């Protein structure tokens, strides 16, 4: 009678979560490539859609907010102000939305073969970023048109904003992707969050309106929203440099970062990191029953 030394054995299906993704980076690359190369398959215009769709949406918002509500007179270089915030939220919406449906969308694979399932939401977010690049290109053109000459702080600010969006969509994406397998309600709830995102951050208006009209409590709450922080980073990076500082004669100029911005930014980062941790925990908990729930 021999006993077996179990130290030489692996337990099938036991993963190390996000860390495993590093070992599977080649597959991650292929999954991302699959996403980009099949995105506009069978469409004549292809990637043109990535430019056309946000532009159309932008013009609608611009007409309504800029002309009808007169934001054009309140904010100098309003198109640039709006577009830099708008594509930031678009990036979040795309990344978060794709990640939420990533596991369910790869049903065939998840049910039949074991691989670190975190790969799917991560690939979805990277794909969203690639899809964001054409919009960023448009923004660059618009910004240069307005005489944008960035320095290191502007570039750093843009990178910080995008990193924050990536982090928050990753945390929320993992959380919702895990829940969505058993409860498709998650998909619909995510849709609600995405609809709110444009309005719950200073995209179509300036942040001063929130504490002014809604009081300081909502003002604080509003400023702790990581998307608000990211949008303000983008405004600083692309817009603030092209307009004069706020003054009597320049009411539409840049008024400066909101008070306590550094603290709010810190809170936003902490919230995002906590969301990533919660997202990973929930995802791993849900992962055990993925194959039977799909």
């Amino acid at each position: 009678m021999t006993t077996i030394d179990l130290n030489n054995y692996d337990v099938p299906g036991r993963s190390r979560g996000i860390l495993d993704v590093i070992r599977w980076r080649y597959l991650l690359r292929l999954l991302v490539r699959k996403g980009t190369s099949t995105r506009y398959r069978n469409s004549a215009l292809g990637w043109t859609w990535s430019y056309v769709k946000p532009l159309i949406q932008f013009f609608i918002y611009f007409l309504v907010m800029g002309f009808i509500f007169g934001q054009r007179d309140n904010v100098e270089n309003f198109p640039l102000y709006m577009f830099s915030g708008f594509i930031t939220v678009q990036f979040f919406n795309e990344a978060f939305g794709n990640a939420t449906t990533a596991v369910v969308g790869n049903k065939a694979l998840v049910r039949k073969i074991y691989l670190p399932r975190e790969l799917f939401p991560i690939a979805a977010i990277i794909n969203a970023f690639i899809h964001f690049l054409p919009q960023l290109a448009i923004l660059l053109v618009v910004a240069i048109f307005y005489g944008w000459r960035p320095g290191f702080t502007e570039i750093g600010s843009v990178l910080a904003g995008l990193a924050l969006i990536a982090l928050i969509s990753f945390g929320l994406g993992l959380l919702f992707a895990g829940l969505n397998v058993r409860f498709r309600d998650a998909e619909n709830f995510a849709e609600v969050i995405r609809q709110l995102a444009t309005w719950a951050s200073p995209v179509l208006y300036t942040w001063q309106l929130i504490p002014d009209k809604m009081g300081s409590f909502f003002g604080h709450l509003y400023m702790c929203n990581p998307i608000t922080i990211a949008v303000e980073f983008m405004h600083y990076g692309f817009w603030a440099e092209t307009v004069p500082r706020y003054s009597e004669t320049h009411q539409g100029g840049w008024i400066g970062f909101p008070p306590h911005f550094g603290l709010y930014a810190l809170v936003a980062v902490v919230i995002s990191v906590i969301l990533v941790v919660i997202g990973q925990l929930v995802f791993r908990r849900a992962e055990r029953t993925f194959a039977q729930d799909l």
Partner: protein
Amino acid sequence: MSDTIIQTSETTPAIIVDHVTKSFLKRNSHSMKEAFVGWTKGKKVRADQFHALDDVSFQIGEGESVAVLGFNGSGKSTTLKMVSGVMQPDKGRVFTKGRVAGLIEVGAGFHPDLSGRENVYLNAAILGMSKEQIDARFDDIVEFSEIGDFIEQEVKHYSSGMFMRLAFAVAIHVDLDVLLVDEVLAVGDEAFRKKCSDKLKELAAEGVTMLIVSHSMGMVQDLCSRGIVIHEHKVLFDGPIAEAVQVIRTTPH
């Protein structure tokens, strides 16, 4: 549950399935509304437990070829999914040694809009191969699949036979120590089936451990030396393949 497992196979086991129980929920209501309506009518709303596997234990020694036999719904595929890690057991433990890959997933990772070449890379990577390994084996894979020039075509234009042949060719060229095969050898025509079973025999001769689920008695008798009969979610018989086949033939359905 003790912390040590007594070895039952002749050689060091490559797969250990130790007192594994798996149950699924058979849901009686599918939404809160349905649950409420059912509750007012006095129907059963809570989910039932349904045992797919009940205290199943076996060990497969390194280099052994073993068939898992049983009627439809007896829990064969669930067993394989536990070994591959797709599902986790509710009770008991599963261990494997070395690289495990399965023909269970033939074609699961194929994307119809990608070309044959892109799909080969994607699927081989899904099965755990690196870029260098795939580059080195690519020609062998295409040759084995007999796809020829169609490799640059989108997979959606393939015939179902071509599709399965390519998927099979990818799976069979993965580096592995343990191969799980789930009822996939009904692939292609007679000649290709022969080629597949020859390839499986070749792998077995190289010392690859195999666990095969099949309803084809001829094939398992040809490939395996041992058979495990799972009947009504329990192990009914575990022994030489000829006797296992006899057991399954005499067991009432």
